[in-house]
């Protein structure tokens, strides 16, 4: 049901929850618990599957853990562990909030909201183009990877892997820029004059 909230409310709810998660001192255990409960409640309200959240957290924790563990390792006292817990708890809570926002707010809605918040048009035009062609480039990258894998008979050395991966990147860059040229041509053909125009979003979002 969170999906149907007005977009601004969703955005500000997420910002408020992240603010709460990052500002509450870890020493006040009950307060942290309340914030965690609110976030968990928001997740259940939006019917986000727990398994999905758990899977995302599984990929999220290792880098944060590596960063946080350096603190207690470098000092013996209790202080290091307190900081370790603070970083882990705050990171986890704000990550889950962001995950909630990602799931209840489709990207085009986010764009429309940002536009209502008066983010410059140039930025939004670039952002929407980027979002449009991101998936095209991913598919392109996938095809190039498949082609590379099809040409390889054995596992190459580390240096060869790096070299071919960087060449893949360069080739993708060339293709992307060529595509940008074609898109630019197509935009010109449709009367593009460097100004972005937007179709007004209806006041009520989809029922």
């Amino acid at each position, binding site marked *: 049901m969170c999906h149907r909230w007005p977009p601004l409310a969703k955005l500000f709810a997420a910002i408020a929850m992240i603010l709460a998660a990052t500002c509450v001192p870890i020493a006040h255990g009950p307060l942290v618990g309340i914030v965690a409960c609110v976030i968990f409640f928001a997740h259940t309200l939006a019917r986000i599957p727990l398994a999905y959240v758990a899977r995302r957290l599984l990929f999220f924790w290792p880098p944060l853990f590596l960063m946080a563990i*350096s603190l207690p390792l470098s000092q013996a006292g209790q202080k*290091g562990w307190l900081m370790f817990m603070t970083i882990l708890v705050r990171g986890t809570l704000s990550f889950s909030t962001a995950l909630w926002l990602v799931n209840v707010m489709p*990207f085009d809605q986010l764009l429309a909201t940002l536009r209502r918040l008066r983010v410059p048009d*140039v*930025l939004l035009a670039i952002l929407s183009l*980027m979002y449009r062609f991101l998936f095209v480039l991913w598919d392109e990258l996938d095809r190039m990877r498949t082609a590379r894998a099809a040409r390889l008979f054995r596992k190459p050395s580390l240096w060869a892997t790096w070299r071919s991966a960087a060449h893949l990147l360069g080739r993708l860059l060339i293709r992307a820029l060529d595509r940008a040229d074609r898109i630019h041509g197509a935009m010109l053909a449709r009367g593009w004059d460097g100004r972005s125009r937007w179709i007004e979003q209806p006041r009520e979002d989809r029922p």
Partner: protein
Amino acid sequence: MHIQDGVLSPVVCAATGAIALGAVSYSVHRLKQSVADRTIPLTGMMAALVFAGQMVNFPIGAPVSGHLLGGVLAAAVVGPWAGCVAMTLVLFVQWALFSDGGLFSLGANVLHMAVIGSWGGHAVRLFVQRFIGDSHKGIVIGSVIAAWASVMAAAALFCLEFRMSWPPSEIDFSKVFTLMVSFHSLIGLGEALITGIAISFVLNQRPELVADAASVRQADASCVGHGSAITSTLVAGLVFALAVAAFLSPFASSFDDGLESALSQMGIADFNLTGRVPGVLEGYEKVPVPIAAWQTFAVSIAGIGGTLAVFVLAWLLGKALPAATPNLNSEAAGE
């Protein structure tokens, strides 16, 4: 490389956010100024490319693999302003689509990867090219050095931000910094290698795609006048100085512990540096005092903030003084 929410304190997040906002607004401003109708599709595609390019894995060990960061590469192709905007949008979309990085630490991430990566990387590349020349070799060497220096500069800034985020009493930061700096120097080497190979590949295949340094200098010169060569040298110097500061930061933080103990042995510390009242209580030494907290990271600030201050001063002086030698490029562009 992404900083998550909760790692930095709200105050530091606000400060880095404000700096990043200023830098990105300036980039957007410059982008609007230079706006050809081609800029928007090109920048959007570049942002999408950096995003997709980060999916290309560069294996390091069995489970660990690195990937491109892309600031220097973006700046080399679309210029520093569009590069900075593209990298900022990449970081924003990574948060908005995948909740990578954080909302409040977005400012710090933008500062590290978009602003230092694109502005700083571009300035370093032009600076290096001034010595090696604008040949393909010069561009590749310049980008390699720029990629490495920009990552190290980001590491130094991160150390400073981390230091200011946590109460420095009782905590020994030198080991944390050593870990971070050695980790980042690996990332920096990887980034330098990837950027270098990718750029030399593009130069081989389609040399016209990489923004020609001479024309960039001309364009800059026609916009800003004589100051631009000085500005880019200053920015390059600043990035180099931060990169050096990254290596010094572990020593700096153990140094200020050493300084403190030396001062307290001499009996000076009790006086005006740490805010302790001399000779009232023996056990009072153990109690952290807010002013003592300031003193402990003063040395870090002195290291990096001092460098910053010197460069700001030099830049202001350079602005005030007329350029000593007329710039040939700007005259050519002024026609």
